[in-house]
């Protein structure tokens, strides 16, 4: 009997195309000897990661429930989350712009197989939200709405973590929920869908 497979967690994909394949032992190897199918090589590397100047400004703002984008110095586009650079002109973004915690659903999909410990119960809606005043959309999950009612152009609002749980993390925005405002016409979302 082979040893129990407790080295790794295998994502429980449904059978078929995405199924985890069984190890295959080439005939040439199997003829010679008992094949070595696995070696155990524990590996870990620790990194002391620093996000940099602009992301630090953004993450500090999140601790206070503020969304701080940064402005392209040439064309005025506001990037959120900021990475320190305007990718369009290759120049640093230095001016911070505070954005509201609301926006418009620019794209979504319905997730039926969740990955990771933080995934909400399936099915759930993963979304790109174009925050008001921003040039690019952010990723999040959309809850508090029946899935069949989700549509591009709907207005959404951030749901923040309780004050005592706020940290310098994008996870401070727990999820997005519907906002009772008229939808934005899809043509106004051109370039973001």
């Amino acid at each position, binding site marked *: 009997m082979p040893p129990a497979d407790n080295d790794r967690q295998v994502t429980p994909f449904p059978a078929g195309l995405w199924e985890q394949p069984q190890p295959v032992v080439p005939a040439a190897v199997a003829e010679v000897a008992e094949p070595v199918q696995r070696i155990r090589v524990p590996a870990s*590397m620790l990194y002391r990661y620093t996000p940099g100047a602009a992301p630090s400004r953004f993450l500090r703002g999140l601790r206070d429930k503020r969304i701080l984008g940064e402005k392209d110095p040439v064309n005025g586009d506001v990037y959120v989350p900021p990475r320190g650079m305007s990718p369009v002109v290759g120049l640093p973004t230095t001016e911070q712009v505070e954005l509201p915690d609301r926006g418009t659903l620019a794209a979504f999909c319905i997730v039926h197989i969740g990955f990771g410990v933080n995934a909400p119960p399936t099915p759930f809606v993963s979304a790109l939200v174009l925050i008001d005043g921003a040039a690019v959309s952010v990723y999040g999950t959309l809850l508090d709405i029946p899935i069949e009612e989700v549509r591009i152009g709907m207005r959404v609002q951030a749901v923040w973590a309780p004050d005592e749980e706020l940290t310098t993390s994008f996870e401070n925005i727990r999820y997005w929920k519907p906002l009772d405002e008229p939808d934005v016409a899809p043509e106004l979302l051109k370039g973001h869908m």
Partner: protein
Amino acid sequence: MAPQRDVAIVAFAQTDHRRAVPERNEVELIQPVIRQALDQVGATIADIGFTCSGSSDYLAGQAFSFVMTLDAVGAFPPIQESHVEMDGAWALYEAWLKIQAGHADTALVYGYSKASPGDLPRVLSRQLDPYYYGPLWPDSVALAGLQARAMIDAGLIDEAEMAAIAHRSREAARGNPHAQLRGSDPLDELLAAPYLSDPLRRHDCPPITDGGAAVVLAAGDRAREWSKRPAWIRGIDHRIDSHNLGARDLTVSPSASLAAAKAGVSEGKVDVAELHAPFTHQEKILATALGLGDSTVLNPSGGALAANPMMAAGLIRLGEVFRRIEDGEADRGVAHATSGHLLQQNFVAVLEGDPR
């Protein structure tokens, strides 16, 4: 490989190299350098036909980290771009090929890394094969010690000569405002220091560096327009020795010798050579492999012993030779870059200025 088109280095910029730059991320680190290199020739990204970079996710601790760094270029409208998980010298090789093939007339090349977030000697051990060497986690300094020991046992170098290489390099770096280590303790103090990885002492090893560099390439008349004295790439080649350390004679570098021969190093005088030798004894291996004599000034910048930003230290060797040719300090020079453990992979380029 002999060039079909005249291609030259026409601009070079580098960071002020430091042990750690925690206040900036990689794109914030490299953007000023890219901008400086373009500014030197009065160009914008729209004037550049091809962009190629060298960096490593293992150093960044992030997948596809180079994609984020592209934000520093201003890659919109979309540009022709590529990346190598190697030193920027190999990115320069790819860019040179692109220009040789006629697909571009100009190129921007950059390389960078922040080694500070990780434990560099252990990170570098991940370059080893996954079955035999990797699981043993030999660190890069211990492996270099094996090579230095083999050199000493073969009578090819001694600890005093190694210390002299360290001393000469770091004293030379006093003239390099970008260097991380400038100046050296006296030789007798170096040799009195304890071993780090016997027979290597601290001074035999490169510093760990956060930093980067950028270079602009141009062909023909554009190169003459962009530089008062372009450093023409007369020959360029790169070769690789076995990854199996036990299968190699560690005291020599056949791949460096072959790359030097193919690049035509010996076909003229070599005023200056910038060798990417992270450890002192490796400079001796490389100078021997490249056939460099006493008339060549070795590593006037201080070399990798004065600053060793991974993925950029090789590209910087090209830039340092270019700068000396452009300034008229040298007419013909050799730049070398290495990658992998114990000089496994070697790149050699011969650069030459027009007659004065």
